[in-house]
């Protein structure tokens, strides 16, 4: 029956039709109400999530006195109290003054955040790249090479996902002490690599093993070695997986305080990363809120940039057109 036939009214069906229409209307009202409710809940969740961040943002522009005197939501009443002073202090360094033994006031300029920013970068970039490279090789092996013990090894790696990194800190620290890696960037890179590898390998394995086998076989017949296959086909095709792990690992390492405190403290203040500096900014008694908020926003800039930069790789469209489906 064609669509036109279906729509043609049957004699004597008017009443039934009207009933059907009103039924339809009721259904659509219920549908709209459901939608509204859903959207309201979502909006609420979004607000609950973003409000604190908004509060931080507003506070970061406010005067220290005002921060302690009134809530951030009152800031709009007194727009003159907003300034970039906090950012200036955080970026350029804090002014310290004290009265020395002779009664003179001494002014000192504290360290700025730029050094810490650089350190964080120096820690983060290799800590993201090394595990990606190692894990991608490993995942390729697990997915496409046959070797004895493959399953057991892979199960072992997956099992490592469940091990909390805290229990490894002290043993590793002791080994680093012996190896002279304590307080060096290399030590932190290796630590982050080790902690990130199980997840990375698991993630990449899951992705790489879903790539159509025939693409690889076709490449083998074309004359490619495993290495060529890996670099020319698997790496570019696994970009979505690599990028999503890169974002996770980047955020994790960038925001990490624990691992940096344990393995980098030996390097002194010159090797401090952003999170350590933020901790210091808050003041020993947590009184320097205004600086903490500004510092937090400065430290957020790069992760945001990375996220938006890699965002398009989240779209899994890269495989489209290769094989049917």
């Amino acid at each position, binding site marked *: 029956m064609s669509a036109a036939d279906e729509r043609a009214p049957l004699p004597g069906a008017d009443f039934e039709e009207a009933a059907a229409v009103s039924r339809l209307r009721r259904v659509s009202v219920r549908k709209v109400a459901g939608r509204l409710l859903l959207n309201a809940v979502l909006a609420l969740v979004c607000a609950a999530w973003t409000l604190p961040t908004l509060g931080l943002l507003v506070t970061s522009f406010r005067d220290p006195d005002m921060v302690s005197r009134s809530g951030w939501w009152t800031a709009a009443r007194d727009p003159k109290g907003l300034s970039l002073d906090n950012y200036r202090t955080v970026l350029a360094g804090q002014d310290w003054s004290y009265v020395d033994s002779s009664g003179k006031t001494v002014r000192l300029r504290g360290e700025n955040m730029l050094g810490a920013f650089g350190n964080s970068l120096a820690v983060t970039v290799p800590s993201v790249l090394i595990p990606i490279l190692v894990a991608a090789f490993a995942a390729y092996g697990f997915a496409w090479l046959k070797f004895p013990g493959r399953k057991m090894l892979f199960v072992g790696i997956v099992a490592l996902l469940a091990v909390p990194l805290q229990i490894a800190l002290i043993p590793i620290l002791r080994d680093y002490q012996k190896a002279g890696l304590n307080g060096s960037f290399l030590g932190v890179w290796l630590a982050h690599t080790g902690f990130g590898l199980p997840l990375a390998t698991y993630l990449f394995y899951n992705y790489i093993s879903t790539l*159509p086998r*025939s*693409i690889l*076989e*076709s*490449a*083998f*017949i*074309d*004359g*490619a070695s495993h290495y*060529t296959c890996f670099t*020319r*086909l698997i790496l*570019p*095709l696994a970009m979505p997986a690599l990028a999503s792990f890169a974002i996770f690992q980047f955020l994790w390492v960038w925001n990490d305080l624990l691992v940096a405190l344990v393995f980098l403290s030996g390097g002194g203040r010159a090797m401090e990363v952003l999170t350590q500096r933020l901790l210091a900014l808050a003041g020993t008694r947590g009184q320097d809120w205004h600086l903490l908020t500004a510092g937090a926003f400065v430290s957020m800039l790069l992760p945001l940039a990375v996220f938006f930069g890699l965002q398009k790789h989240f779209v899994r*469209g*890269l*495989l*489209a*057109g*290769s*094989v*049917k*489906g």
Partner: protein
Amino acid sequence: MAKVELRNISKVYEGGVKAVENANIVVEDKEFVVFVGPSGCGKSTTLRMVAGLEDISSGELYIDGDLVNDVPPKDRNIAMVFQNYALYPHMSVYENMAFGLKIRKVDKAEIDRRVREAARILDIEGLLDRKPKALSGGQRQRVAVGRAIVRNPKVFLFDEPLSNLDAKLRVQMRAEIIELHDRLQATMIYVTHDQVEAMTMGDRIVVMRDGFVQQIGSPLYLYNSPVNKFVAGFIGSPPMNFLSVKVLEEGGKLVIDEGSFRLHPDDAHVGFLKAYVGKEVVFGIRPEDIPVAEGGKGQRIPAKVTVVEPLGAEIHLYASTPTQSMVARTSPQHHWRTNDKVEFAPLMEKARYFDRETELSIIPVAEEKKS
């Protein structure tokens, strides 16, 4: 170009599953051979062993006279076209075709020449800069074929290359691949589950089932001289009719009894059927060999029409006796209706008989004459 020879090739998977058993197949130089069979019959596994993508469990594989059992795929000088095209999605059409040559460090100008030549043959010159995802199914398959052509391999392997295309395109690509074979004068092995493809494309056909090669021969030879019931039923569309009948001896003459009708076998067949007197056999007859009787006298199969399939040029008439059913290919002049009574006049000299247990042809099949 090259001859491919499989000697006693078997494939046993881990866990003991036998995919291919004792395959003996010779693909002559420049020949187009089709492996055909239902899914799971081992035809793809056999092809993949020729390609080197599967290990050979036992037996010997020769390409161009060389034993290549342990030679990796890239050194076998073969090219393969996959069912799902297997194009490299992040490369353009040009790069896809050039990939294998680049890896083999072929001179850049030579790569360019070969890619453009292949693109011209396949009529995809306008698509060279596109990515696979911007191509239609037929175009993708052409690129996959192009990727094989540029390599100029000894043997082309096709693994169900057309089964993802729609019916119309499939017919067109079928013709193009045949044309390509004539043009390149290359040895080609083509795997399909579609017997029409096998019949129309192959110089010779290898029919497989459950890991065993059933019969090898030219399309018409297989059609006319199937060695067993499986080949008889698999080759041809609509398939051969199989009726369960009993062989009887009546007054010194052999009869086959279906229950609702009796027929006298052809004189040439009587001698072989004698051994089956009193037993049931499978009587096989092709749909075109049971024309509808237009009066006159002779042997008749009475039946009742169940389904009429008018195809334009002919009608497929499905009919049944009280216990069994059959299909006949008839001319479109008649207007049949369901439940019409009909009488078929079987051409008994064309009939085949198969053993019920072994399913082998009771009438011996002559060897195919080498052309």
